[in-house]
């Protein structure tokens, strides 16, 4: 045998030959060797005293929260409490912020602008448009997020959230998704943009994309108030008065649950079409419970999640405020741009069981679902001759003092129970707000996925509203 000069190629050739000789067992025997050594060392270095076996708090908690029978109810109960605390807890600071930003600073700014001799169109454009939209988003969006995210983060820090994922995994696996998607979905109930960011915890790329695209089916807290208001006015009214409260609350829950079901259906569809591929393997670890560090959690959830999302929303809301003011105040041929669009789109809107006002509101209020209802009210007043003098003027979003006033405005605008129900459905099934779309683009780095996430719910919304309207009209004769 002649000695061969060692070159990269000879080394690789030899390694390759040996690799074929060893075959598949190589990887396994290597792992076994490592495991054996690890076990031997750990056995020498670690001692457990007997007490641990008698009562293990972690195991006891796990036995309850991941049990076949109790796991689900405990989860639903806990999450309901979180939502309830969020809605109730956010009301007070929300009202406080609104009274400062909308009722005090807004008139004050208008007066100041008038004092400085601003022309009406300029103060309208800047203050009624830009400022008001920004202020509205802050007062409606900040408090629920400031309550919801810290609670959510505390549950995460404590170690409960992985158990939720564990409970939900079987269900999500059938839909071709990851158990952790239940968490990003729950996060989406707070804010879809935050839910999309949270999808980072899903380590397999395909499942992460599914979670990102379907997050919009979680009714975010910008949409809950719309649901509650409209359900109260239109659905509650269908029931006898003593049942109205229960029926309208039930209607909101039905819409939210429908969102969850549809997110699973769409996940299933995606995993079998556009995102087809082998189900990727992953492990779901149940970490030990740990006492959460409260101050630290408050800090990170406030900075990382709340303020981050809020800032993005404001950046999008202010320009939209300008647009809202402009379409209501720029007149072409005697009527405003808004009215032109509403008249033009109204037949299509009515076909869907909606109307032109709703369609326009969803287009110009794309930055934040929070400003949809104020925009709808403003546009309804603008286009309804019987309502002259109601509200705050063209292009100035407003909210009525009571649900009764809102109801009378909407009834005057020609709304029926069908309009109300379809608005609730459309509020669930429409494109994500621009903040979320932008976040999806940032997270996936792809225009394609952002577009898909926008188009899928919108198309479903049109289809569902059309189906309901057709059915409604057929039944109503």
């Amino acid at each position, binding site marked *: 045998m002649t000695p061969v000069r060692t070159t990269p190629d000879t080394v690789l050739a030899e*390694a390759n030959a040996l690799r074929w000789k060893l075959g598949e067992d190589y990887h396994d025997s290597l792992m076994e060797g490592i495991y054996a050594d690890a076990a031997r060392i750990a056995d020498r270095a670690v001692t*457990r005293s007997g007490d641990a076996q008698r009562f293990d708090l972690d195991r006891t908690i796990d036995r309850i929260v991941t049990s076949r029978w109790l796991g689900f109810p405990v989860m639903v109960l806990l999450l309901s409490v979180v939502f309830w605390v969020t809605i109730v807890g956010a009301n007070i600071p929300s009202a406080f912020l609104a009274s400062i930003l909308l009722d005090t600073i807004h008139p004050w700014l208008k007066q100041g602008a008038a004092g400085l001799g601003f022309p009406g169109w300029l103060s309208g454009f800047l203050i009624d448009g830009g400022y008001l939209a920004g202020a509205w988003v802050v007062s409606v969006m900040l408090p629920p997020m400031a309550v919801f995210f810290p609670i959510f983060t505390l549950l995460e820090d404590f170690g409960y959230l992985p158990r939720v994922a564990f409970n939900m995994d079987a269900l999500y696996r059938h839909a071709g998704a990851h158990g952790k998607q239940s968490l990003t979905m729950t996060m989406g109930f707070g804010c879809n943009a935050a839910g999309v960011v949270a999808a980072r915890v899903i380590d397999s790329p395909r499942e992460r994309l599914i979670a990102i695209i379907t997050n919009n089916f979680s009714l975010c807290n910008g949409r809950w108030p719309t649901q509650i208001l409209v359900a109260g006015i239109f659905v509650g009214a269908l029931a006898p008065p003593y049942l109205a409260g229960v029926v309208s609350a039930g209607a909101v829950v039905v819409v939210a649950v429908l969102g969850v079901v549809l997110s699973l259906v769409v996940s299933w569809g995606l995993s079998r079409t556009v995102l087809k591929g082998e189900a990727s393997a992953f492990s779901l670890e149940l970490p030990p419970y740990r006492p959460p560090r409260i101050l630290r959690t408050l800090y990170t959830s406030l900075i990382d999640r709340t303020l981050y999302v809020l800032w993005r929303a404001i950046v999008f809301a202010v320009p939209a405020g300008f647009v809202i003011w402009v379409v209501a105040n720029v007149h072409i041929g005697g009527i405003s741009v808004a009215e032109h669009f509403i008249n033009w789109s109204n037949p299509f809107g009515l076909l869907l069981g909606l109307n032109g006002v709703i369609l326009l509101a969803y287009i110009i209020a794309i930055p934040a679902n929070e400003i949809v209802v104020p925009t709808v009210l403003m546009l309804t007043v603008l286009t309804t001759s019987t309502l002259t003098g109601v509200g705050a003027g063209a292009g100035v979003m407003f909210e009525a003092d009571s649900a009764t006033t809102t109801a009378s405005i909407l009834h005057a605008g020609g709304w029926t129970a069908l309009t109300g129900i379809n608005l609730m459905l459309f509020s669930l099934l429409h494109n994500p707000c621009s903040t979320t779309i932008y976040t999806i683009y940032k997270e996936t780095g792809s225009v394609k996925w952002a577009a898909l996430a926008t188009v899928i719910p919108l198309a479903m919304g049109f289809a569902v509203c059309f189906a309901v309207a057709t059915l409604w009209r057929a039944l109503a004769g």
Partner: protein
Amino acid sequence: MTTADKKTATAIQPTPEACATCPAFNAGHLTRLGITITDVDYVIALAGNPNTGKSTVFNAMTGLRQHTGNWPGKTVTRAEGGFAYGDKKFKLVDLPGTYSLLSMSADEEVARDFILFGRPDVTVIVADATRLERNLNLVLQVLEITDRAVLCVNLMDEARRHNISVDQRILAKELGIPVVLTAARQREGMDALLQSIFEVASGTFVCRPHRVHTLPRDVAEALDAVTARVRKLFPDLPNARWVALRLLEGDQRMIEAVQSGELRTVVSNHTTGAPIAEEVTA
């Protein structure tokens, strides 16, 4: 910073030799530098299983507030931060948490390649004291790649709660690297950890890392044969055995590194001890 620069820097700021290595001198001399990571003397990689408190250790050392959560897979991208200890500046690179370094997932590739090609001066492996056996699998894999490592057995507070005790001396003896028991959430043991990192980085402590030897005969023989070949090709390579392990696994990245001679640069930088702050392969 080149080797020459480093020498001048040391010349300008002479260190009292005896004092600098003494824990009492260095204790409390941690300066957290946050994201200021220019002109570093040493690069430290932070590896470990998911959910072992790696990010907490990272934050405690750098003063950064990377989000930590009781939840595997929190660190999505590689995070970097800096700290100064003794008279040296360190860059800390937080690698994604992984259970192993031997399979094909993207996270594992980032961690594996950084430990080899990123050439950290010290790799700190954070392990969960309550699940030490499983965590040791990763530790042993890291020790196949690098011989400059420190084991940080974290979550000792939880271990005590579960009545688990860990013998630090046996571990250090078996593994051949410094072992520190910590509870990073309470900052317990952080001084000792910094001191150990300092000692390994500066060469005061020379590791004799454990190498896996419980292997079937045919595997061991094949491994020895390829290791000998690799050693012949790159005589100064400190981890020829790891290269051989990966070649037998058919790791494409490693095959390319052998072909292109990239491994030679790993060698030259390691032997001169030049700090490598800028060019980092991810």
